[in-house]
């Protein structure tokens, strides 16, 4: 039965894609198309874009994603645990408690090191604040 | 301190560089040499009895008939609640005056505006560009002899 269920998911995906495609096809039939150079240029509040938008991006986003991935992997392991938790009982609880505590150690570390903060050099700021 | 006293303080401190005192204007104005303006302004700002903490406004004026241009600095003090206007007379054909941007950072934009509209050049200004008009605009529109353009870019004005 399981495969059936997932095949229905697959069929949903197909139907979704087909729907989008068909709609865009219909749209293609009825919509006007009058491209010109300015129209195809990128919007930037009415100005000509300066430079390139595909530039290297801020590293903070990477840190967020990094921490997320680690947590993501961890919580995925909690799903099998959650469904057998009641039947196994306290042992399962302690097992997972250790599991989580180890993780929380890491979490405390990144928190402490300021990896969770967006702006990190608050040191200077503190000084300037003290002066005032 | 009223304007008269301010004038006296100034003329004592900057003998020979203060040209004239005009009492009938409101606020009373002191005409000063253009190259002394920075010294005078920083003096006015620093001196505790004067303490002109802020520059209220800076205006350019085109005195076409006299072949002159004026730059007028309106100064005010929050603490002492007095006001004064400083005037600098410039040659209309080649208006140049040192910037007071260092004294009041707020002067930056006012000077750019005067440059934009009158073509008055503020020496040593950090960023003297047109501010209100497009960069490719021609002429100094607030001058009395400005002729309106006929066409701009691709359309009629």
């Amino acid at each position, binding site marked *: 039965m399981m495969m059936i269920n997932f095949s229905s998911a697959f069929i949903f995906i197909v139907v979704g894609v087909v729907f989008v495609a068909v709609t865009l096809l219909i749209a293609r039939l009825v919509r006007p198309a009058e491209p010109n150079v300015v129209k195809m240029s990128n919007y930037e509040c009415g100005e000509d874009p300066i430079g390139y938008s595909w530039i290297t*991006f801020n590293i903070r986003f990477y840190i967020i994603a990094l921490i997320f991935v680690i947590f993501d992997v961890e919580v995925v392991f909690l799903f099998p645990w959650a469904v057998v938790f009641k039947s196994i009982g306290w042992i399962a609880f302690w097992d997972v408690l250790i599991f989580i505590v180890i993780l929380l150690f890491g979490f405390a570390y990144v928190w402490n090191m300021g990896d969770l903060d967006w702006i990190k050099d608050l040191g200077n700021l503190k000084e300037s604040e003290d002066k005032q | 301190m009223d304007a008269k006293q301010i004038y006296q303080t100034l003329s004592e401190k900057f003998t020979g560089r203060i040209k004239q005192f005009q009492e009938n204007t409101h606020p009373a104005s002191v005409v000063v040499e253009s190259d002394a303006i920075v010294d005078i302004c920083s003096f006015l700002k620093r001196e505790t009895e004067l303490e002109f903490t802020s520059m209220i406004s800076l205006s350019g004026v085109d005195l076409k008939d006299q072949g002159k241009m004026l730059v007028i600095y309106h100064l005010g003090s929050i603490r002492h609640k007095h006001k004064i206007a400083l005037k600098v007379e410039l040659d209309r054909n080649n208006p140049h005056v040192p910037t007071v941007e260092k004294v009041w950072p707020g002067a930056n934009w006012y000077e750019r505006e005067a440059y934009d509209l009158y073509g008055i050049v503020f020496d040593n200004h950090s960023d003297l560009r047109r501010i209100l008009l497009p960069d490719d605009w021609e002429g100094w529109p607030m001058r009395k002899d400005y002729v309106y353009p006929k066409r701009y870019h691709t359309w009629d004005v």
Partner: protein
Amino acid sequence: MNPYALEAAFFYLFSAMIIGSALLVVLFRNIVRSAFALFFTLFGVAGIYVLLGADFVGVTQVLIYIGGVLILIVFGVMLTHRSYSVDMFNRLGTLVMGAVSAIVTFTIIYYAVRRAPWYSVGYKPALPTTQPIGKELLTTYLLPFELVSVLLVLAMIGAAYLIRSEVTTARERSPITKTGDNDSGLTPEVSSTGVKERGK
């Protein structure tokens, strides 16, 4: 048409998706596109897992690989992307070398697979896997299970350490020294006054 035919159909479909997009991954000149092509590969692999009755692994594949690792990769690409560094491939020689070794690898695998006497237990009915996996994890694989946590924490700490030195704020490089404060964690009791006296 029978369930096995359906399975076969799905298999070939997913295989096509995997192989096609994997080729794109290694062939696209534009690395951002490669990264996005990897999306389809991973998705196809998830499909294969499900097809093999490993629903939990399949879903995990989507959740971790697509929703996590791939995003990490894309971010990595964006972080190191330079708009003018287009040439991503080595010289032609390497290309040929690579192709040859890939073909050799495949040939070896192919013959190994074909030759090997697979004594298959045949087609097992697919059963729900989440519960058994949970049981196994908490019993047989308890140690690895805990080690996973350690490993991940170490990876997190290590990775965070590696890039931390690179995180500077714009203020350091900013041409203008700023006077304003931006509130981040340092808020002196911002909302302690939350709902205090209204108006005047």
